[in-house]
């Protein structure tokens, strides 16, 4: 069975590859929603960042510069979302939808203005190039661990972030305050916590994480921007965040289920013989989504978010 090890490892690596962008998005959601601000603009932020990352990398020839550009647009969008929802207590859903719609229009507009195409950018320097990957040669050949032998830096970053975010949220003063603001901002305020500051911070930090999700798409796995790049990934990140009960590890678990189902789906489709060959393609393709709902029905049950999630916080007058 030794010959199966490369395949197993490659499959896990692929699942991780698939996981990273969605994980970033979900962590962005975790960050923002733990402070009580719903961010359904994860999708739009990913799209913006995916594009700006490619743009930056294209202009400079350096993927790290692209990364900075992507983070930059993440900050700008986060600030916009925070300005609307925190400063002016605007509806968080509406603000999120606004950013998503703008992402649809503006990015395509810029794509055409800059690259003379409406669909696909040229390839640029990226993190997935063999030379840019993190090589842990000693792991090669070991079952499962071998999957980690050649990952992009962004995947590692996503995985490490899960731990970091968990630590920040549950073991630091800042995390305690963030969660307090998300649970009961009025209580936090009566204790002298600057609710607005915390929310501003969490929203912008969450947006930057979502931006990393976009970057993982355009500069991690691939080396270019395509118009349909983020299509749905941000929303799946949102779903994973809820599935994972608004916690970093929960989100990771949810996405791993989904990513493994995706890889499994491709594998089953490719090797289908006999009866399995008769199963229509649509069932294979929808398998990950059905499994997610199934997992929710079977195991996870009711998810309860931060108590004041989505409620605009207004200072009484």
């Amino acid at each position, binding site marked *: 069975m030794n010959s199966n090890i490369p395949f197993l490892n490659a499959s896990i690596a692929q699942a991780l590859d698939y996981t990273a962008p969605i994980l970033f998005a979900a962590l962005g959601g975790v960050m923002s929603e733990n402070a009580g601000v719903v961010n359904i603009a994860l999708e739009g932020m990913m799209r913006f960042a995916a594009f700006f990352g490619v743009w930056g990398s294209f202009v400079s020839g350096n993927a790290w510069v692209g990364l900075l550009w992507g983070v930059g647009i993440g900050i700008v969008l986060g600030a*916009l979302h925070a300005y*609307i*929802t925190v400063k*002016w*207590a*605007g*509806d968080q*859903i*509406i*603000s999120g*939808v*606004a*950013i*998503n*719609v*703008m*992402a*649809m*229009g*503006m990015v*395509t*507009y*810029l794509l*055409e*203005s800059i690259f003379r195409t*409406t669909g696909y950018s040229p390839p640029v320097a990226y993190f997935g190039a063999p030379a840019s990957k993190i090589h842990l040669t000693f792991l090669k050949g070991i079952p499962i661990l071998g999957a980690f032998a050649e990952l992009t830096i962004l995947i590692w970053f996503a995985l490490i972030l899960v731990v970091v975010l968990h630590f920040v949220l549950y073991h630091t003063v800042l995390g305690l305050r963030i969660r307090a603001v998300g649970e009961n901002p009025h209580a936090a305020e009566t204790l002298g916590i600057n609710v607005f500051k915390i929310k501003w911070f969490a929203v912008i930090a969450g947006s930057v994480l979502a931006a990393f999700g976009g970057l993982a798409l355009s500069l991690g796995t691939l080396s270019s921007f395509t118009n349909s790049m983020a299509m*749905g990934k941000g*929303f*799946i990140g*949102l*779903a994973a965040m*809820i*599935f994972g009960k608004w916690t970093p590890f929960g989100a990771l678990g949810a996405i791993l289920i989904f990513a493994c189902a995706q890889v499994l789906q491709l594998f089953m489709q490719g090797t289908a013989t006999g009866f399995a060959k008769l199963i*229509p*393609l*649509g*069932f294979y*393709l*929808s398998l990950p*989504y*059905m499994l*997610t*709902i199934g997992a*929710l*029905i079977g195991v996870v*049950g*009711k*998810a*309860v978010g931060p*108590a004041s999630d*989505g*409620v605009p916080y*207004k*200072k*009484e*007058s």
Partner: protein
Amino acid sequence: MKDVLKRIVFGKREKYWWMNALVPLISILLAFIVGAIFIKITGRSPVVAYKLLFGASGLFPGPYWKSHFAEMLLSSSMYIATGLGFAIAAKGGLFNIGAEGHFIVGGIAAAYLGYAKPFAGLPKFIHLPLIIVGVMLAGGIWGAIAGYLKAKRGIHEVITTIMLNWIALYLIEAWLVTGPMKAAVETGVSGTPYISLSAKLPKIFPPTRLNISIIIILAVTFLVWYLFYKTTFGYEIRTMGHTLIFGMEAPKAAGINVERRTIQTMFIAGAVAALGGAFMILGVLFQYPPIFEGGYGFDGIAVALIGQNEPLGVILAGILIGALRTGATTVQLAHIPKTFPSIIEGFTVAFIALQMLIRYWIMKFVMRKKKSIQSEMGGGAK
């Protein structure tokens, strides 16, 4: 008369009732201004862009006005359908991202009932209503799945509606349309067979292809409004809308069957959004093509939000977005990307979200006296 209008349109008793109308208008205006700045920055002429955009939007008279107008209403009827799909659920406190899925489920149901044998032979006055009912049933059931999982299992509707969108997409496009419902190879048609003549929506504005879809959706919108505000059923949905997301139990304690209403709300939302897909098939494409990405469902969210989740608002917002989209392809004549109107749409929604700020400005303008603003607004800025 004014009072009646006020009461119908704005809900009476608001001291500054006209604000509710003014805020979206100002939002739209601001969006156009910001859009112009954006165009200017990217090196194009806003004047040309808006001339083309509005010239072909169908909103204003001009050459080819008739067909633009028809195209606008065709689009609008679909946007209103998906917009209502979101708004209905929102009224019940549910966050429905599933309009996209309902739209395509409606489309495939319309296509099937439109071409399949036992139905295709029926006379039009039976066939068409039958299709509409079937479409609403199909979309309704697809919506009710999310409602059921929410009510009985507590599974968040955001997850289920997102997942169900994809499931619908793949089952339809990677199974039904390329499998059991595929048109016979000899016909040379890809996608499903074409619907029969009796399934096509009657045209009402020849020679354009405008059809009764706009009339149907206006009637449906009126029914939805009536349902919300005039019936006990709508009353119950609204009690849920104000409590469900906060975990409050007052409606339940008052004997309202919250679980059943949740399912029903999602059913209605799905049924109405599915109409949009049916309009597309029965009035524009006449078959379900192999690939059918529209984005009408997602734009429906924006439509609902611009329309403040109110039926009348959804109609107006649907017309606005329909007009923008109708004018959109024409801006390419000046080599402006066709997605330009999406930018305006996005800014409009953003300014709607910023309505506290806009209200603040208006109040400041009206009162010219900062002191009393805060108490008049009852919260917000400090």
